[in-house]
Every structure is written in C-alpha cells, then in structure tokens.
C-alpha cells in the first residue's frame, strides 16, 4: 500500500463510519488542518525567545515530540469543539479561571 492509502485508512479508523464516505476532499482537509496546526503552534512557540532562548528550544522540542507521537490531533480537536452545552460550559469556566488567575497573579512578576 502506498502512503496515501495508509493515510486514508488511518483517517477512516479515527473518524469512524458516522460521517459518511471519506472523500478525497475530506482527507485533504484533515491533512491540511493537521499541518497548519503543528506549523502555527511551533512558529508561535519561537516567540518565547523573548523570555529565554533555552526555554524556547526546550519548548519547541517537547511540543514537536508530543505532536509527532500523537499524530492525528485534528480529529480529536474537532470532536472536542462540538456544540454540546456541557463541553462549552467546561471550556468557559476553564477560560474564566485562567484569565482571572493570569491577571491577578501574573502581573506581580512581569
């Protein structure tokens, strides 16, 4: 089997049979989303060089290894960002605590 068929098979295993047929279009979209996500996050991490260069190198390597080992991230990310009220409330409460904690305590050290 060539590489393309292996990728399609893997995507089919992850998505299951619920979404209908896995067309060329959806495979391309999934691959593009995956590559875009990994590339954007890694480039954004390079901005850490303003804080300290060592931290940036460590962060980039760690995130790269994590991404490569758990490769089909985009399908999990898509399933997480669904429309159900409970998952939206969960993320809202997490975001609220993160924002308030960051502002209240983060400003003491910056």
């Amino acid at each position, binding site marked *: 089997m060539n590489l393309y068929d292996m990728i399609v098979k893997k995507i089919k295993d992850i998505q299951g049979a619920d979404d209908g047929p896995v067309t060329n279009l959806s495979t391309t979209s999934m691959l593009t989303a995956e590559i875009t996500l990994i590339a954007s996050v890694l480039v954004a991490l390079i901005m850490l060089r303003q804080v300290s260069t060592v931290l940036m190198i460590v962060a980039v390597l760690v995130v790269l290894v994590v991404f490569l080992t758990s490769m089909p991230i985009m399908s999990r990310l898509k399933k997480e960002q669904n429309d159900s009220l409970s998952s939206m409330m969960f993320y809202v409460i997490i975001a*609220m605590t993160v924002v308030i904690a960051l*502002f209240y305590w983060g400003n003491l050290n910056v």
Partner: protein
Amino acid sequence: MNLLIPLMVIVPILCALFLNLLHKKDRAIKTVTIILALALPALPLLANYGLHYFGGYEPLLQNPTLANNLPSFITGGALATFHPAITYSFQSAQQLFVFILGLVGLLALFTSVYETRRPSGVYAYMLFMGVAAMTAIILTDDIFNLYVFFEIAALATVGIVLVSNIKGNYETALKYMILGSVASPLLLLGIALLLGVTGNVNVTDIIYSIKTGAVDPQNPVLLLACGLIVFGWLYGSGLPPFHTIKSAIYSKALPSGSAMIQAFSVFTFIALGIIILRIFSYLPFSQWVILGVSLLAMILGITMAILQTDIKRMIGFLAVGELGYIGIGLGLGTTFGITAGLFQAVNEVIITALLFIGFGVVVYQTGISNTRKLGGLMVRNPWVALLVLLGGFAMAGVPPLNAFQSKLMLIQASIDAGFPELGIIMILLSIVTFMTFMKAFHTVYLRPKPADLEIKTETIPKATVISLVVLLVVCIIFGLFPQYVTSYLQPLATSLAGGVV
C-alpha cells in the same frame, strides 16, 4: 451641542419600533424599510465631530455658571474635571465605523425584504435595534452604557436567530443565552470593581484617576477588574472559548442576519478592545493576553474552518479566525499596528458580509447548505459566482483588494515591533484561508451537479446582486486607496499608542 450624535442611536430605535407596528402589512413594510434604512449610512456622514453629553452637562471646569453655586472642595479639586453625563464622542474613526455599520445594515435589510417570502416587520425590528445598539457601543465613552447596549445587541442577535426558521435555531439560541448570562454578569462585576476603586464609570475619568495616582495602578482589585472585563470581551466578540457557539449562531441565521451578527461581533471587539487598551495598557501583561487570545482565535478558527462540511459554518469559523488578525494589530501597541488592526476590522466586516450574502444565495436557491450535496451551480448563476469568487479573493488577501492592504500593513507592523513570527503565522493562515474558500467554491459551483439536487427557486432577487456589487465596489475602492481610509483611523491609533487619553 451636536444633535446628530444622539440621533444616530435614537433614529434606528424609532425605525425599529415603527416597523414592528407595521408587521404583516407587506407592501408598506417593503417600502418603509428601504426608505428608513437609507438613514443608517447617511447620518454619520452628516454629523459633525465632537462630544455630546447625554442626560447631563459638561464637566464643571467648562461650565462656570453652574460651578458658581457649589462649595469650593467640589470646584477646586479633581471633581471639577469629571464628567457627570454619559459622554458620546464622535471623531473620524467613529464616523468610519458607524458608516460601515450603517452600510452593511442597509444592504442586509435591502436583501432581507426581497429574499424572504413575506417581509417581516419583526426581523427588521431586530436588525434596526442591533444597529442602534452597536452605534451606541462605538460612540460611548461610558463603560456601563456600553454594557447596557451590549446586552441589547445580544438580545437582538438572539432575536435574529429565532426568527430564521432554520432547524435547530431555538436550541442554539438558548445555548447562546445561557453562556451569555454567565459571561455578562462577570463583565458587570468587572465594571463594579472599577466603580468601587475609582468611583467613576466614565472611561476618561477612570484613566485620569489611574494616571494621576489617585488610585494605585498595581491595586489587585484593578487587576481582577481587568481580568473580568477581558473575559466579558471574549464573550462579546466570539473569541475562544466562545468561538463554537458564535459560529453556530452564524449558521442558524438567515444570510442577511449572519452578515449583521458578524458586524456586531467585530465592532464589539474593537470598541471593548479599545477601552481595555486605554485603561489597562500600562500593564504589560494585557498586551500579551490580547496577542495570545488573538493567536488562539486565528489558529482554532481557521483549522476548524477547513474541516466543516456546512458552508455557513465554514464562513462562520473563517470570520472568527479573521478576528484574530484584528487582535494582533491591537495587541502590538504601536501606532502602525493599531491602525492596521482597525483597518483590517473595517475590511473584515465588508468581506464577511459579502461572503454570507453570496453563499446565502445558494441556500436561497436550493434550501440546503451541506457541501456534500451541492454542486454545479456555476452554470445557473455565473455572475453571482464571479462576485463570490472576488469576495473570497478579498478575504484571502489577493491584491489589489482591501484585505491585501490591511494584512500587508499588519505583517509590516509585526516585523517592525520585533515579532516576525506573527507575520509568518499570518501569511500561513492566509494561504489556508484561501484554500478553504476555494474548497467551498469548488464544491458549490465548479464540480458536476449531483443528480438529486433540486433548484427550488430559479431567479435570484436583483436586490441580492445589487448588495453584492456594492460591497465588492467598496472592497475595490478600499484596496486601491488605503491611505484615504487609514487617514480616518490614524488619530485614534496615535492617541491609543501614545498612552494619552
């Protein structure tokens, strides 16, 4: 006293109430809506720049007749500079924003009376109230007044979704209101903390208190207030974690309604973002948070957009992603960056309205928005396909259209500020936006028509085509003459970046 400034808010409210009374009289609604909607872009062009003091008088320092009768501990100290009224400030940037909002409102109303079977007075009411609320949010200098109109805009958004008769709209509207009723009281709590610490709700007076040291700038209560107001800002503009519900709202409204709702989101983003920058920019942390949230919005929005199979949700997620570009401009903090961000916002409103109305034609003709079932519509409407294609080019940043100019300015600003990584990410995501749009265009227009696709209505109303052409002409004009537009935005950007009130 410049009377046209409050009229910019009052006239749409009166039009809304009048059209609600006329509900069910079809001929009357059509003509009256179009005539009244012409006032929306016309009023900001006629008004003069200045301040308007709503429900009060100007500060005592400028009002010697009133100050004569008062004791000296009021007229002698800082109290004399405080604003006792709700202050509306109308300068060049606000004129541009209210004009663009009015233009999109006019075209949305124009499209909606011709696209629905029976023109609805209630729907026109919702659109007009939304425009009135957003005008007040752009003009106001008083943070509690902003909160009141913010809630009115949220109710108008929910009304637009409820009227649309799309499957699942009531559930989405209820989810939006539940999340909103968690986030808005927290915004009110932030405003209450600001009131408690500084004793004012007028933004100019709050900045005065913080700058002159009457209030300790590192007071932890102020920091908590900043966090809560930023959280309310995330809800109002549809940034993560509220991006999924915002794009669901875009998909459950009629196309003209979606065009208005995305305009509401962008202008709430700018108005509240400007106030956060004005009050809290002395905290270096606030700029990092704005940059971080915008980056997250860009990445999550655009990666989710590629994976969608429903065209309206795809454009909805793209709209959320484009908000991130505006945030990066505001977060950079330099004059050039803020000007670029505000210019991107103006372009964003126009382009997304064009795409929603353009792809809405497809939904109007076939009744379905699932890309798996569409195809081959290029043969039927080649002109609309061309207009939508140009709109998509505009969104991705193809020269000489408007988003190219603003994205180029953003990338230059981020390189000048010392963050070339942001420029790289912006270019990468623009390429992916282009790919997403071409995917949508291909599945709707270019590929062969599936056998079971039935066209419900043959003719497209001329009003829709006229709206698309007007929006495209504005895109081209802003793309060819960007200095004309940025000259309106420059004074506001200079005052924000310089840290002056």
